[in-house]
Every structure is written in C-alpha cells, then in structure tokens.
C-alpha cells in the first residue's frame, strides 16, 4: 500500500540524478529491495508503471527489483542467520539479543541510459 509513496520518492531522486548528468531519457532503474523491507516488489513495479509514464524523462523506463537476503546477527554467540526463517530468535543459542544486519534496504542501486 505504501509502494506508490515510495515510487514518488524514487522518481524525485532519479530525476535529480538525470538532471545533474544532463540525461534526458532514462531506460532502466535498478532497485535493491531487502527481504524484510516491507516493500512488495510486484506492487512497486505496478505503481512505477503508472507513475513513471506520467514523466517525460521516464516514459517506458523499466524498474528492476533485486532482492537482498535478510541476515541477522546474534550478539551473544556471534552467529549470523537468515532472518526470514528464524525471526528474532537466534537458531544457534536461542538468544533474543539479535539485530538485523541487512535486508531492510529500499535503495536505488543504479540507473541505465541508452546511448544513441
């Protein structure tokens, strides 16, 4: 549901980068989306299509979402484990004293421009 709001942020940032680089047409935007970022890639690309086509510089531009695996770290036994499977509890020692290392990214990785 918040994907549309996020799309507006992406559009604003991409337009700014394009302007700084004197680019008039962007062909692809690549996103890094963490597994536990709460962003649903399918919704994001749907919202993107609707909103990007309203911008001259982004008409027909595709949005690619690359998934980043969520990994947590246990402060007690120093293990790293997959957050999606085990959640907050460390599978090695059972501790709750854990935090997310990566997997909540919603970042613009790069943009592509077709050169004539």
């Amino acid at each position, binding site marked *: *549901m918040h994907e549309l709001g996020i799309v507006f942020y992406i559009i604003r940032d*991409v337009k700014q980068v394009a302007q700084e680089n004197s680019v008039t047409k962007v062909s692809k935007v690549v996103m890094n989306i963490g597994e536990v970022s709460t962003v649903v890639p399918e919704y994001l690309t749907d919202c993107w299509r609707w909103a990007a086509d309203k911008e001259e510089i982004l008409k027909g531009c595709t949005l690619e979402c690359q998934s980043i695996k969520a990994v947590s770290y246990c402060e007690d036994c120093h293990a790293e484990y997959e957050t999606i499977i085990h959640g907050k509890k460390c599978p090695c020692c059972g501790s709750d004293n854990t935090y997310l290392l990566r997997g909540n990214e919603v970042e613009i990785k790069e943009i592509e421009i077709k050169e004539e």
Partner: protein
Amino acid sequence: MDKVKVIEIKKSVFEDNDREADQLRSELKGRGVFLLNLMSSPGSGKTTTLISLINKLKEHIKIAVMEADIDSDVDAVKIKEATGIESIQLHTGGMCHLDAGMTRQGLENLSPEGYDLVILENVGNLVCPAEFDTGACANAMILSVPEGDDKPLKYPLMFSVCDIVIINKIDVQPYFTFDLERCEQNVYMRNPKAKIFPICALNGDGVDALAEAILQRVKLWQSK
C-alpha cells in the same frame, strides 16, 4: 545494439526523509516542543484515547493535535469539541502515511503559541507509517483487544519503532481470546524497550498511568 551507460546511485529512498526528520527533531528540541507520533489500525480507538488523555494532561501542559487522514475532518472537529484544545486536520492527498515534510507543514499551520506537546495522529495503518520517520520525539501505537494479541508478530516493524504501546479496550477482554501476557511477550520480542499501557479509553481505566508517563517524557525532553 545501443550502448548502455550506467550511473551508480546507491542511495536509500528514505535518506532524504530521514535527514529532514532529524532536522525537524532538533528544531523541536530547541523550541522545547515534544512531538508524539501516534499510530494504529483504523478503529482501534485513537481519537477516543486522545480525548481521554488530553483531558488529563491539559491542566499541566499546553497541547495541540494534528489529525492526519486521507480525507474528511471529523476527527479534528471531534477533538476540538471534546477537549477545547487546538486541533488541525492534515490531508495526506491519498497517501497512506505522513513524512517529515508533511509533518513540518502541519506544524507551521498551528498557531505560533508555545506548545509543550503536539500529538500527531497518523493515518490508521500499521505498515506504512512505521517506514517513514516523521521527526517525532517518540512513537506510540495503539493495539486494541479485538485485533488480537498476535498483532506484534504480523507487523514487526511497527512494534519495533514504538516506544509506547497502548493496549486499548481492555474492558472487553472477557469476550475475546486475547491474552494480555502473551501480547506483552510478543511486543517485547519485537522491542524489549517498549513501555506497555493497558487502558480502557472509554471508562478511563489505566489512562492516568499513561498520562503520567507522557508528562514525564515531555519534561525530560524540555529539561535536557
């Protein structure tokens, strides 16, 4: 084939908002204004809780409320009528959450009196408001008994960003399979530092303790 040029960006979508939020927080600190961001699902009793809370707090500190909704101003009118304090309505223009920029605009629309506490009633939704830092000094959320004690498991982010978790409608607990202890465990699993307040906004049970805790936070914010 066309050659493709790649420009690397590597920038979080939330970066600008996070920066704006930090900026807003430090401005509020300088002015001695405590901004509380209140979140919940629709129908958990946000507005009723606010009325009950404000009526306890308004003799001690100066309070204003900003109501955020996708549309209508029923909540802002209701708060003003029931408490007499300044209450303004913000429309999110269809968006499911408020960001720091919208929060700043809202604050600029309040009359320039010195408020101690401004409460932002965020859009009723447990997903998106948790993603966007509004610049608030503390986050609170309301979970009501009919929603179930497993809500913290389903919406982990919301519970991990909240300093205060209010469990409302505690009076109807006998009619639901809601286990308060299990709920508290689920909250602590997401956020061991959360403070939990079971209340009934309608009859006022537990609201004194909540009001006292908020008052303390406001004083602490203003003193440091």
